């Protein structure tokens, strides 16, 4: 309810404008996460911002349409945002001996489609950039592009593809959330590789180096995110059949009709 309210989104964008203004007047001293604040050269930061904007507009439209057609889905939309909010706050240790966090956008993508998650993902990133110095405003475009655009679109494609091939719901959900999560960090690696090509080997060598940092750390976390998403879908299949049915109608997806939820 808190997160998806459209007036809220308007207020949040006003807040961003305000904060940006203050930001420029009173620069501060700190570091962040995702791609850290200031860690992309200006041209790249601007490029990713511009690349993000059309998806955000499409996302706001998609959310408006969903809410106008089915006001009863507002709560579920807020829930999808809350799921991403929780998962991206959990920095989980990984086998590489460093920590990273899941993105949590796969669930919302399966329910509401990819562009809706661009908006929700961006809101989560703004919260983290402003309050926790995690990520950043200059790198918001790049981070939204990886977590809110590439991740959800890959998730969406895999979900649809797996369903089409006749995979059971749990497997489609698992693959969709897991691979979407991984692709987010592979995208981050390429964004850094493009901005900082290695002296020998260029963009690819550099991207592979960043992938070694992000992608391997992310692997077990992506699997965790996949499993958690399956768990949530299991619960919804039991208690929220009506909502899932409505969503199935306007996304053309099949959802289970049995009461006990997803068969494993």
């Amino acid at each position: 309810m808190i997160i998806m309210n459209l007036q809220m989104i308007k207020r949040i964008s006003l807040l961003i404008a305000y904060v940006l203004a203050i930001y420029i007047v009173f620069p501060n001293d700190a570091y962040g996460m995702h791609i850290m604040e200031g860690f992309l050269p200006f041209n790249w930061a601007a490029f990713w911002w511009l690349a993000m904007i059309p998806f955000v507009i499409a996302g706001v439209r998609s959310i408006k349409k969903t809410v106008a057609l089915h006001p009863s889905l507002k709560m579920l939309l807020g829930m999808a945002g809350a799921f991403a909010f929780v998962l991206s706050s959990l920095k989980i240790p990984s086998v590489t001996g460093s920590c990273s966090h899941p993105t949590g956008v796969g669930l919302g993508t399966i329910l509401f489609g990819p562009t809706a998650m661009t908006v929700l993902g961006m809101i989560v990133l703004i919260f983290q950039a402003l309050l926790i110095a995690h990520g950043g405003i200059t790198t918001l475009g790049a981070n939204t592009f990886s977590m809110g655009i590439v991740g959800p679109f890959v998730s969406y494609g895999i979900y649809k593809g797996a369903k089409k091939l006749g995979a059971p719901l749990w497997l489609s959900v698992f693959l969709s959330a897991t691979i979407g999560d991984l692709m987010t960090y592979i995208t981050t690696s390429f964004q850094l590789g493009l901005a900082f090509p290695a002296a020998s080997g260029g963009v690819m060598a550099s991207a592979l180096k960043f992938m070694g940092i992000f992608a391997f750390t992310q692997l077990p976390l992506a699997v965790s995110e996949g499993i958690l998403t399956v768990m949530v879908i299991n619960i919804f299949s039991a208690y929220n059949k009506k909502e899932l049915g409505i969503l199935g109608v306007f996304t053309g997806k099949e959802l289970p009709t049995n009461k006990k939820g997803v068969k494993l």
Partner: protein
Amino acid sequence: MKPIVKNGLLLVVVVALAFGPLFLKRNAEFAGADVQAGEAINAVAPNYKPWFKPLYKPASGEVETFLFALQAALGSGFFFYYLGRSKERYEASKREIKHD
């Protein structure tokens, strides 16, 4: 298998994935992957200076932990409120069907 048993088993796997590394790599630092990426940027482009700084940085590790915990609490608060509400509605609709 009952859904709750299924989800219970899945949860065990997630917990193992999250806590396993702490035992497997006892001596690791478990720093954020982003900090490592920052170091890697320094190695590739030693002359690069971040041109923009976060406008607010938590005053200490404690404050940062507080904000992260707050984020998790707000998110899971809403999430489980929604789940509880859904379950209650589902059971209420089942009861209604029985009374009819």
